[in-house]
């Protein structure tokens, strides 16, 4: 058991983390590659950068839109994201792991904050899952992964909380810790290949849609040629 834990904490962690990083780099690179090619082809290269930056910031820090439509859902969703980002990165135990392995260290969340934030994230994940199940519009749109993700994301949070806060006997602790690490590693691998890719793609969206409306010049002729419609009436 000890060896298995060591393996998941060491080589397996490094492997899955690298897969995630490379996967994310790949999709960002593909996005930028596509955007540059589109920009080169665009007939009009004047982009409203200011508006795109403004919209991006507005959605990265969505204070303005929270209370206009669906306020409860908005607040829940924002807090959920805050917990999801802050806890794994700034939990003291995690920071210490980075420090002991790579020598990197950064600010850590105070213990009680981390606890509350973890519990809040678990509760919010459950609420968002139930919300998706109950809301007729959202349920109708949802794919399998949309229901699975909030539940999957809860696993490392629940197991992590239990490991850190309850006087468990060593055997149970080890099982839970294994579940904690493995679930996190599964998440790492899945991130670049599922909708969680939005964690890196979302800041690019406003630039992409601004550019997407900048069509290439003269597409009529080549499309007609390809589709054999030269000289065909309107």
């Amino acid at each position, binding site marked *: 058991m000890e060896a298995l834990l060591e393996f998941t904490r060491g080589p397996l962690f490094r492997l899955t983390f690298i897969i995630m990083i490379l996967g994310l780099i790949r*999709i960002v690179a*593909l*996005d930028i590659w*596509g*955007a540059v*090619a*589109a920009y080169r*082809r*665009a*007939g*009009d*290269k*004047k982009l*409203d950068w200011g*508006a795109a930056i403004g*919209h*991006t910031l507005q*959605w990265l820090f*969505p204070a303005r*839109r929270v209370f206009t*439509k*669906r306020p409860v*859902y908005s607040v829940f*969703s924002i807090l959920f994201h805050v917990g999801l980002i802050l806890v794994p990165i700034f939990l003291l135990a995690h920071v210490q792991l980075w420090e002991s392995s790579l020598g990197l260290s950064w600010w850590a969340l105070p213990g009680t904050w981390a606890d509350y934030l973890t519990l809040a994230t678990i509760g919010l994940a459950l609420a968002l899952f139930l919300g998706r199940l109950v*809301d*007729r*519009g*959202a349920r*109708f*749109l*949802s*794919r399998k992964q*949309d229901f699975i993700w909030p539940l999957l994301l809860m696993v490392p949070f629940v197991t992590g909380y239990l490991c850190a806060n309850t006087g468990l006997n060593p055997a149970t602790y080890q099982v839970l810790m294994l579940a904690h690490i493995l679930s996190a590693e599964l998440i790492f691998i899945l991130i670049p290949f599922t*909708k969680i*890719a*939005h964690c890196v*793609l*979302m800041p*690019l*969206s*406003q630039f*992409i*849609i601004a*550019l*997407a*409306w*900048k*069509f*290439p*010049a*003269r*597409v*009529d002729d*080549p*499309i*007609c040629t*390809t*589709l054999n419609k030269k000289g065909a*009436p*309107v």
Partner: protein
Amino acid sequence: MRTNIITAEEREKAFASAKKPQVIESQRLDVRYHVEDYEVKDRPRRFLEAFAAILKHTNYRFALEHFIRISTKCSRCAVQCPVYQATGDRRDIPCYRSELLLSVYRRHFTVAGSLRGRLFGTGHLTDEKIEEIADSFWNCTACRRCTLECPSGIDHALITHLGRFILSEIGIAPRALVVSTREQLEGKTGNTSAIPVPALVDTLEFLTDDMKEDTGLDIDFPLDVEGAEYLFTPAVSDFLMEAETLMGIAAVFKATGGSWTISTNYFDAINYGLFYSDRMMERIIRKLYGEAERLNATNILIGECGHASRSAKYYVPVHCGGDKAKPVLNIMEYTLKMMETGKLKLKPDTITERVTYHDPCNIARQGWIIEQPRKLIRAFCKDFVEMTPRGSENICCGGGGGTVSIDEIRSYRTTVGGKAKADQIRATGAKYLIAPCANCKKQLRELVEDQEIDCEVVGLHDLIYKAIDFEGSHAGLSAAEKKG
């Protein structure tokens, strides 16, 4: 989720299809708009061929790649869609509509999707799916409000735009739009309303006489002047339906002494290509620009029309030389500039009744023309009230995206598409509803009639015409006129 769902009675009225069962059977399309007869055989294959050709020669692919990766299906767009808010039909949620096309893209144009599809033998494009796309993509009014509300930044309007383009390539597009565009590009009259030149000249002479009676001044429409500063092209239907808007515009030019002209060779700014086909949009833009070059005009000035302004403003640079292309302006920009430079004087408080302003989606959504008309309105209207929401977050008139030209779906437009707008208009209690857009005007007139709202729909220049202080402006008046 809050919705403002229509009653069962309204639903029946809105969705009563005007199409004959034989037509539905022979065209394999149960949609509410009429489509010219087309080759029904092999639809999925031809749809995919058209899709592939478009992807090859345009810029859509990189955006679709981004959208399929980022879509989280949060359903936030549902709260902003006036159509879904009225029907409550989940198939009208913008994200659902987009997914119809994105799923085709994922299955047939990505490696992972086609591998999975082949492995499980699922997800390939079927006739039924094409039917669903054909129905769904024309329920949308292309108002682009959903794009504002998408946290992930998916542009559902772009997807609708693309979907309609692909459909049109296999022959599925509203007949009303196709026939008009055909007349504009290939017909004898060369404009969407099929107005012959003698009729145009007659109309304008008649308006000049009318204005002489009203103002005592000679206000004319200069035709085919070479080297004018502004080549003026309105939505051509204005020559038939919006005489007062045109009179207001001519009067503004008279008062400000502006150099402008209307070409009798080509006088139509309507561009239905924006609604159904990038290829047609390009042809129309090039035709318009060719006319500006032929007459050696400095600027292209579009009349009171949202989609015509947007298509010219954003696609003249695309197809006619980028930065170097002739500038495109909307008439409201010209009039405001004249007022702000003191060349145009408007008499304050000319209009004492309550006035409200409808933002046409195509010029307001991207923040282009929002404050300009309001500054003008405040200069001569005593009681101006705003609708909420307004500006770039405005609510569509319900006839956007070309749907207003489809007469057979009027009941759909006035009960579903325009329901939220009707509530907004009612809440203002305005006597005049200013809508500086040919499409919005037509739709809103039908809307206030069908929804029984006591309100008159007018153009901005209709009212400006009444408010111009020719004496005070006097740049364009001759010495004799000033004395008179």
